[in-house]
């Protein structure tokens, strides 16, 4: 009982944590590019990034399954590289989660970056800061709330995913059986007590996360005055 409870919980946290971390690394340059570029590809790329918002998770999962499967482009590539096939592995789940949660990272970051007035970057440049230096010493601190929102939303959204997991990960204990799937399992098996434990703890966890986010963001902070 304890085992079957903690294993999915730990797996869920690991998946969400890793996805969030990787997405912040990948999503930051994408968001920065979208916030600053005047390139004609800006709109199409923004649309691609937003696609997971509107697609049913099963659609996303279905195509990922095909692409990462033995007949798919990615599947053939991973096999050639000796990684093997990604579907029904934890790694496959991470890749799928990253795509699924991409807009939840990129959009808050993009909004935050857009609100950093170009004048601050110009001022930093005239004060001898190189482009990378400007990004880390001016943009990142000024977009602090954007990073916070992106991180929390991505984490929470990944914890809540179900359809994609089911399509791409299946239901392998210790590998791909995360909380949402475990709850579904218990309900199917009419084990309502177990389902209750898991479901209620997720409600509590989500509540605590959101309250701490609002507390962090709502802290009175000297607003920028220009």
């Amino acid at each position: 009982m304890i085992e079957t409870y903690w294993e999915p919980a730990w797996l869920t946290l690991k998946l969400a944590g890793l996805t969030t971390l990787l997405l912040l690394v990948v999503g930051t340059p994408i968001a920065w590019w979208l916030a600053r570029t005047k390139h004609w590809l800006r709109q199409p790329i923004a649309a691609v990034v937003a696609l997971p918002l509107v697609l049913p998770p099963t659609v996303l999962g279905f195509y990922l399954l095909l692409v990462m499967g033995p007949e798919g482009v990615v599947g053939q590539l991973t096999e050639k590289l000796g990684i093997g096939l990604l579907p029904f592995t934890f790694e496959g789940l991470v890749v799928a989660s990253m795509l699924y949660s991409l807009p939840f990272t990129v959009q808050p970051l993009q909004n935050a970056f857009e609100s950093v007035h170009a004048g601050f970057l110009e001022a930093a440049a005239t004060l001898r800061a190189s482009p990378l230096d400007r990004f880390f010493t001016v943009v990142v601190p000024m977009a602090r709330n954007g990073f916070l929102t992106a991180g929390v939303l991505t984490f929470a959204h990944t914890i809540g995913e179900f359809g994609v997991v089911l399509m791409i990960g299946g239901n392998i204990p210790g590998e791909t059986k995360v909380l949402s799937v475990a709850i579904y399992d218990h309900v199917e098996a009419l084990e309502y007590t177990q389902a209750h434990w898991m479901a209620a703890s997720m409600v509590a966890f989500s509540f605590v996360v959101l309250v701490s986010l609002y507390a962090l963001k709502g802290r009175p902070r000297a607003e920028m005055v220009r």
Partner: protein
Amino acid sequence: MTGRIDLDFLCEFPGFRLDAHLSMPGSGLTALFGHSGCGKTTLLRCIAGLQTCAGSLSVNGEVWQDSKVHLPVHQRPLAYVFQDTTLFPHLSVKRNLEFGYRRIPESDRALSFDDVVSWLGLARLLTRMPAGLSGGERQRVAIARALLTSPRLLLMDEPLSALDQRSKQEILPYLENLRDRLAMPILYVSHSVSEVARLADHIVIMDQGQVVDEGPLQATLARPDQRFGLEEDAGVILTARISERDDTWHLARAEFDGGELWLRTDDRMTVGSRPRLQVLARDVSIALTRQPDQSIQNLLPATVDDIVTDIAPGTSMVRLMAGSTPFLARLTSRSVHTLGLTPGQPVWMQIKSVAIVD
């Protein structure tokens, strides 16, 4: 090591063409002057490298840009004071000041942190956040932050325009002080004649993306053929020495090369001080003989030097020389005709008012 600032820029922006070819002195304060939209800010941004424009630029012998070189902004040893302050809102005043200071090698720090802080009166503000400062205080911090990079060229883009009158009066003395104290050249963008009259040593006048006139401030403003439409603000600047105070009438006598003027005075006009005076062309009239029985205090003998038809219809600009000092008088063309003014003719100047600009 005073050299020159040489630049040559030619590029198109949407709805606007910058075509500037200039050689400016490599020291002192040069005002880039013109109506809004004339391209003076764009020129300043091209000099900083904030805007890319084909051309060349060298500052006191160092090439910052030519056909082969184009230094990015952060590698140009300049500082920029923006129209709106761009203090970083997430950093304290002290950390804002240190932002550029920490980024230049120690051996390049010609100005010490404590000196700059005390020049601009910032000691009490160091721990404050930018959001809690007044407009004038913020602009002073921005100026100090710029200076602390020990730049070889200081660019200022209308640093006073976003401030109210009181904050302007608060900052102007600091700017004058810096101009006299610093060896680095300052390029100062402004559309305010009074700021330029007060601060500049040299002036560059721009119109529609082009330089229409440039030269030493006093000589340039004293040209009668004004192509730059100063209109009501046309007039000369002269430096005088206060030689006497008459406290009964609250007047002071200011001597200059070629005559003397009586000024209404306040307490700061001490004997021996050297104020800059401005005499507007519209405040000068001409008489062929001395007119003693009238209210104007300042009557000076002068010689007609040049007469030019002014931009405004029916008016003429007359340049007069009192000794070696030029004055301008704006007269109606009919007056010029009736008086029969010709170059070389001795006349009397009647000066209705004199402004003390610093």
